[in-house]
């Protein structure tokens, strides 16, 4: 009988009668399985497990073969795909087979305010006369995230020459250094350590942290993220269908990746023209800096993988500094240089570019990149550590 004394359906009636029986016999626990037929035996679960494992392994692999990367000259990962680490991993493998030297860093390397034909790797290629420098920059990748990117998705670049850029901006305040206690959203949270070492401003639920860890170790999940980022505008499918209610999701999966466009291109307006005032940056101390610590870890990872490393320190827009921050910054640079020397790592610490060649505190404009590339190529440690190690070394074009 139901709530109001009507006949109940067959399953429930049996259930109720069993329970009302009052005995504690095994029959009393013969409760209906459910109201569907999706009930698998042990063997059937085994079959599901095998099918699923095969899909888990083969899916991303087959996808990688059907979705081709055909980077054009001066290719860089599209801005919209900055969080697509599965694609970055594929790009690493591709770059490993095509380039002698990989230029790694944040948006300064990627070229946030310039076109792909005006970036540092482009000018390095132009000056050296060979297409041997790959733009492996990722927009917004601060040292803490870069360490994760190299550790979990950058295994394929082992043994290569690496120009590793250190952007001092990430140490310009406690917030940039991720040291403040108040939670705030920073770039690439999925790449930073989720539990240890603790990042004070990173306060997401455990569930998200564990998801991030699982994604690093199971390529299937990073591939699933790739689908969302590359074809569904960085949304999961349900959210995408809310935005595109009548669109066919299968049609969105075109197997054609975006080319390396840049919506932020804004080439010839300097920071001064934009009206940005000078600042007294509250630099963090190097010995307590999280970002510096992560940068050191990145170097350690690359070393262990047999990479020949060349560190590019800056050039930070010193014209923007005022007050004590100029001195503090210079002291910090000296400390960094001392550490690199101690560790026997080739590096170049360029002087600040002319003020009008900066877009902001750290991003050069295209003229700035050209000048920087020229300076780098004239740098002796660079010539000895990077250019000479290339068997196909070509004489730099000094024009």
């Amino acid at each position: 009988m139901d709530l109001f004394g009507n006949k109940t359906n067959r399953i429930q009636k049996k259930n109720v009668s069993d329970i009302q029986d009052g005995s504690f016999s095994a029959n009393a626990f013969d409760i209906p399985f459910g109201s569907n037929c999706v009930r698998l035996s042990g063997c059937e679960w085994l079959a599901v497990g095998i099918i699923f494992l095969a899909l888990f392994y083969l899916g991303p692999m087959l996808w990688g073969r059907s979705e081709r990367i055909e980077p054009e000259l001066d290719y860089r990962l599209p801005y919209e795909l900055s969080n697509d680490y599965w694609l970055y991993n594929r790009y690493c493998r591709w770059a490993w087979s095509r380039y002698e030297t990989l230029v790694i860093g944040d948006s300064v390397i990627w070229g946030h305010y310039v076109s792909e034909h005006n970036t540092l790797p482009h000018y390095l290629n132009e000056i050296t006369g060979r297409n041997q420098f790959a733009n492996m920059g990722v927009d917004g990748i601060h040292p803490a995230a870069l360490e994760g990117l190299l550790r979990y998705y950058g295994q394929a670049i082992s043994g290569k020459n690496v120009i590793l850029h250190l952007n001092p901006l990430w140490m310009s305040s406690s917030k940039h250094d991720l040291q403040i206690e108040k939670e705030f959203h920073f770039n690439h949270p999925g790449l930073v350590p989720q539990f240890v070492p603790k990042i004070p401003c990173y306060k997401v639920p455990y569930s998200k942290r564990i998801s991030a860890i699982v994604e690093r170790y199971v390529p299937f999940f990073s591939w699933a993220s790739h689908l969302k980022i590359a074809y569904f505008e960085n949304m999961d499918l349900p959210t995408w269908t809310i935005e595109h209610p009548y669109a066919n999701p299968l049609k969105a999966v075109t197997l054609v990746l975006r080319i390396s466009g840049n919506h932020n291109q804004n080439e010839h307006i300097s920071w001064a023209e934009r009206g940005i005032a000078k600042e007294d940056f509250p630099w963090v101390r190097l010995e307590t800096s999280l970002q510096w610590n992560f940068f050191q870890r990145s170097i350690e990872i690359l070393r262990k993988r047999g990479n020949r490393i060349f560190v590019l320190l800056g050039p930070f827009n010193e014209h923007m500094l005022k007050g004590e921050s100029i001195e503090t910054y210079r002291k910090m640079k000296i400390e960094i240089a001392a550490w690199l020397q101690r560790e026997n790592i080739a590096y170049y610490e360029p002087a600040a570019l002319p003020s009008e060649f900066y877009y902001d505190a750290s991003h050069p404009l295209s003229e700035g990149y050209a000048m920087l590339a020229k300076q780098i190529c004239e740098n002796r440690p660079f010539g000895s550590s990077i250019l000479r190690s290339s068997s196909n070394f070509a004489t730099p074009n000094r024009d």
Partner: protein
Amino acid sequence: MLFHTWPFVLFFLIVYPTYLALKGTRFRLVFLLAASYFFYGWFNPLYLVLIFYSSVLDYIVVARMAKSRRRKMWLSISIVNNIGLMGFFKYGGFVTENLNFLLSSLGVTYTIPAPGILLPVGISFYTLQSMSYVIDYYRGNIERENSFIRYATFVSFFPRLVAGPIERAKNLLAQLHNKSTFSKEDISDGLSLFIVGFFKKVALADYMALYVDKVYDAPEQFQSPALILATFLFCWQIYFDFSGYTDMARGVARMMGLRLMLNFNNPYLATGLGDFWSRWHISLSSWFKDYVYIPLGGNRKGTFNTYRNMFLTMVISGLWHGAAWTFVIWGTVHALGRFLTRELERTSFYKEKVPKIIKQLLVFLFVTFTWIFFRAESITDAWVIVTRIFNSGLANPHCPLLALAFIFAVWSYQFVYESKIKWVLELRAVRIVILVLMVLYLSIFAASSEQPFIYIRF
């Protein structure tokens, strides 16, 4: 800690093997109780004080009842305590708010301060369960439980702790006595239940919620088609959400060799409102039948009293869901619907002449309509939705076709399940393909959901 989140997966990966290792030993229950308390304390450690107090009190009440002639007094203590707990934590704010409204209507300037108490997760569920044990013992339907550990485990058993099913001592407590009910089939059955529930929650319920929340958060901005579709989607959202939770709870329990009761049985295929309530939240419906409707007199004291009892039971049931007038209206509308259809459903015309599909459609439409009051943020919002459904334009609702396709697929599945061609769904290949597709969809496309279950807040 919710079933569809990683912390639960880790929790279960630790708890389950340990439980299996302790299965045949006397430590099994102690471990199960500790795991359940850890699970509950994860939400808020303070909740543990409450559940422990509730368990201790009802355990002592029954122990005293066994030795005392004043059984009714002990029963009253338990009922007052349980209802008092629920009333204080769940309805404190609601009562204060309404008293303040009344005072201001009478011109009194004094305002009673709002209690500002956090509603402990699952209190509505474990309180009813604990109360049923005391009442069943009082009625002589069950034996007294001597072990406090076993009784506390019965009250706090983690799979069903926060949103049911509301178990009876006859079923769950009895199983906790039994050490040998575990089999390999329990693992495969439990896993099947869990995956289906997981899919219902993460792939379906949370998907529907995206559209429903958008519309119901600002109903005045939407026109008739969007409001109708949002209500239709909510109808399925709440089913997928709650039955998904139940499936996962039953799955987890089943893997541990314990069988929780069936709580949902394709309710949207009901052919009458009575039938609907025998398929929807079965554990609550049967609880209210046994402990409210029947004690009120049930259908034994004439037509008027029967309807009065039905009405009271439905309104109390509505209020159980939440401390808001919208829930009272929801219960009342269901009671009125039952009044109007009870006699009709008994006629031979309705039974024999009206096609089954028409009956199912009518029940579905009525139930869907009532969900407006359940989901709306306030009575004003509910009224806005109802009036705008009939008195607004026909603007494009922009409802995702994929969501409708999912609902169509599930509804069709359920129709086939209750038809003569159910055997199609029982084919091994069909079952395996469905399961593989569900897991694949969850792995690739579903949102990394952390949406809480709707019924947890009750």
